[in-house]
């Protein structure tokens, strides 16, 4: 029996660890001095609310797809439909000079682009949209934009699945190139998170960010190599494409199917540099204003 005692002690420790109120005095749950939160305070708050991110993301997903008759099917149908329309319009109607296997080229680029566009559109307004929540209870507001970054991963997963399934049908055999999807998704999420964090913080103050973002997304797609390969471009358009943080991401997706058309290393470095700058800016904005966003809602 004596051998069981350590086990029992461990069990007791674990059960009390699960958060039931213990005998020790409760920790400080609110400790505010002035209006700035600071990176340390934000990190502690995010850690304390780490489970909330998953729960909010799941809620968001359920809410978005539950009502639709085909439910989750819409998550598959919309991006595929949009890519097919673009592929048909640009190859048959506009007679674009394009890479080989144009439909797969468009589909792989669109997978990355649609994730970015949807996460940015939803994420930039997320703090204001969640005001019924955030004006009445505290949790780190940075979770709201991050929820958008996380929820849209499901759509990305589905589109990538469709891409992998359709590519052989459309005449592109897939091979070891698929490993490019791994860095592709990682860099995509980093770049997206950077933009979403900055835009969501700014939108609390500047309420026209909503329109600025949708206008920007509309034009942005045409300087991102989703419709035509960057090799076809020159002059200022090519410069814009090379400076575009999404070029590296989209090219990684291309590399997984039809092959990249620009220097991957250079394009990915540009993407990572953008991501780093934006993430630092986004986290600083959120750690400065976390506890006062609610005042402007």
């Amino acid at each position, binding site marked *: 029996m004596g051998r069981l005692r350590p086990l029992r002690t461990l069990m007791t420790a674990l059960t009390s660890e*699960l958060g039931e109120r213990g005998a020790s005095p409760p920790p400080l*749950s609110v400790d*505010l*001095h*002035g209006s700035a939160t600071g990176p340390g305070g934000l990190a502690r708050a995010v850690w304390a609310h780490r489970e909330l991110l998953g729960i909010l993301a799941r809620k968001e997903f359920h809410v978005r797809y539950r009502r639709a008759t085909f439910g989750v099917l819409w998550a598959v149908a919309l991006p595929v439909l949009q890519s097919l329309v673009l592929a048909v319009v640009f190859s048959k109607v506009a007679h674009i000079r394009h890479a080989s296997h144009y439909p797969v080229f468009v589909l792989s680029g669109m997978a990355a682009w649609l994730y970015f566009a949807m996460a940015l559109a939803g994420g930039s307004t997320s703090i204001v949209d969640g005001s019924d*929540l955030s004006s009445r209870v*505290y949790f780190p507001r940075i979770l709201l934009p991050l929820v958008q970054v996380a929820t849209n991963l499901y759509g990305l997963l589905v589109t990538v699945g469709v891409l992998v399934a359709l590519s052989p049908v459309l005449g592109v055999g897939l091979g070891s190139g698929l490993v490019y999807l791994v860095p592709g998704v990682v860099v995509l999420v980093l770049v997206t998170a950077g933009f979403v964090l900055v835009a969501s913080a700014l939108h609390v103050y*500047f309420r026209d960010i909503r329109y600025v973002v949708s206008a920007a997304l509309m034009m942005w797609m045409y300087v991102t190599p989703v419709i035509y390969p960057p090799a076809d471009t020159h002059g200022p358009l090519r410069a814009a494409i090379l400076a575009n943080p999404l070029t590296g991401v989209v090219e990684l997706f291309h590399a997984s199917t039809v092959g990249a058309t620009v220097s991957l290393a250079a394009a990915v470095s540009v993407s990572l540099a953008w991501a780093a700058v934006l993430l630092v800016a986004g986290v600083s904005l959120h750690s400065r204003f976390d506890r*006062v966003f609610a005042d402007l809602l």
Partner: protein
Amino acid sequence: MSAAIELRGVSKQFTKYVDTPMLLTSMLRFRPGTRRDRIWAVQDLDLDVAPGESFGVIGRNGSGKSTLMTLMAGITAPSRGSVRVRGRVAPLIAVGVGFHRELTGRENVYVNGSILGLSRRQIDRRLESIVDFAEVGSFIDTPVKFYSSGMFVRLGFAVAIHAEPEVLIVDEVLAVGDMAFQVKCYDRMKELRSSGATVVMVSHALGAVRRMCERVLLLDRGRPVAVGTAEEAIAAYHDVLSASREITVGESGLRHEPDVVKIGAVEVLAADERGCWWRTGHVEAGTQVRLRVEGTAVTDLDDLVVALTVLGADGSVVYADSTAGHPFGAVGAGECFTALGSFCCRLPTGTYEVAVRVDRADLRTTLAFAAPVSFFVTGRNTVAGLADLETAFAREESGGTAVVHDPSSTAGVASGSLYLS
């Protein structure tokens, strides 16, 4: 032991933007051209609330109560000073926060619970008890958009109370829900307190504050006016109210002639189930209310007019009436008189004040004003607006009419005994 809530030199400034800041216009204009007003909602507040204490905050609308509550809940940070709260905080600023209409009750419990700081496993273990407390039964797997407003509120409160907060911050939320559930909520709050939790109650409902709170803070214009027992703070509150309302309440348009009549007590009375009349701060809509006014005449009066004005929470006149044109009777010098006004309280949920005035019978001068007395009306769930006209709904059919709902036949069934105990 250190304080559960500790505020040191706390001030909170809000910026009100006259026009919404726009990125495009601010970039086009070279200098920030946004017009704005700065308002100090709370100023230089020091406060300690001990663990296990039940603390009340009262004050007029715009006195900074709500801001103080959001500061304690950590929803917003102070502009100056420091706020420290020990232990898990559950703000009941609006129950059902984060409830999404499309999600089922169960899903909402998980979302809401985790916002309040519970882990998934803790919610698993408490789910059954939450469902029991909220009395939603099999509706737990129904989207909350199909819930009645009562069920919605009950589920929200059940989650908050099961978060087992060390600090519970309660707003006016308990004004909703039926009487039986309110009793349950108050009981549960008392239980929480006896297990060592700190309860902060921010309310207009002076009756509830008086019953629940050991210590009460009165705020006015963002500054602390008084901290003391509930009775002391409420007395100070009435002083603040009468000081600020003297002109609007006495809006008779008549010249004031002091030292002729003194008004003593003004009381709002409600009946319990045995038909006894008690002084109360709470009235249930649709029940009879008595207003009792005691006065003393300093000089002989052949006749006088008693006028009453019911004011809404924002100071607007909801109702005014007087005995003008009908003789009240003579009162001799030094004699006391008591006027009774009975009315059916056909009002929606909210805080009201009743002010009393005594005029000369010729309606040329006002003789006395009384400080307004506040009372809280628990209205019917379906009623909105300024008055409860107690509409009886029926469906017209070929063979006659079928009553759908007639509030006048059901009102007053649940008596106000809760508030009179």
